[in-house]
């Protein structure tokens, strides 16, 4: 009985377990030991072609950063359009089409952001390694990506009239929250 219940609610259980593990990781000793363990990766990042190029040519770094900002704009635009529609704004635009088309724009802009982001991270790897805000951004980004592709998308792929409107609103609000956090923490990396 319990086993079949667990089997039928695999995803819900996995999500709960994921957050439980995340919180326990946060409050355990593991967090500082894994922070030390990944240092060689960041040292290596600075020695890569990306790292050297990012450090040597300030102009190249700035252009890539501008690309990152354009990507941020488009990603934000798609989030606002899609989640705004789910929240009941932009009435008159077909929800099904807006949500679907926004998702592909979102995926493309995320690809651009990740590509430019990796380049920038290589250029300042050691600096960001010691910044808590960078790690919060990575955490928020991971949550956001998992949420969009494994949680939000499967629900929105269903017949939208059949999905509880409150669930749609919850998905929209949490999506806006997480992407705002990713963007804002990213901006703060530049100031610290």
């Amino acid at each position, binding site marked *: 009985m319990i086993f079949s219940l667990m089997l039928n*609610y695999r995803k819900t259980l996995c999500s709960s377990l994921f957050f439980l593990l995340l919180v326990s990781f946060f409050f355990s000793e593991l967090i500082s030991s894994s922070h030390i363990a990944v240092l060689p990766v960041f040292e290596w990042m600075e020695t890569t072609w990306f790292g050297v190029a990012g450090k040597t040519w300030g102009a190249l770094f700035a252009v890539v950063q501008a690309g990152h900002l354009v990507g941020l704009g488009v990603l934000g635009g798609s989030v606002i359009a899609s989640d705004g529609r789910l929240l009941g704004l932009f009435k008159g635009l077909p929800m099904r089409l807006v949500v679907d088309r926004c998702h592909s724009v979102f995926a493309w802009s995320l690809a651009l952001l990740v590509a430019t982001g990796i380049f920038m991270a290589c250029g300042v790897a050691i600096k960001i390694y010691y910044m808590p805000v960078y790690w919060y951004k990575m955490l*928020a980004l991971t949550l956001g990506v998992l*949420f969009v592709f494994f949680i939000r998308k499967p629900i929105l792929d269903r017949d939208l009239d059949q999905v509880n409107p409150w669930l749609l609103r919850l998905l929209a609000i949490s999506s806006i929250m997480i992407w705002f956090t990713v963007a804002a923490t990213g901006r703060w990396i530049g100031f610290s």
Partner: protein
Amino acid sequence: MSNKDDFKARDDRGAGIVFAGGIVVFFIVYWYFEVQSVRELLEMAYG
């Protein structure tokens, strides 16, 4: 809708609520401490 689809829909919904809830809690906790630390710094600087 078959029984299997029904369970799948409920599982997706359950995961949606858990994950979205997790994000909302993360958002509130993170920004609460962020604002708090800025306020403390400002108080130290200006009294």
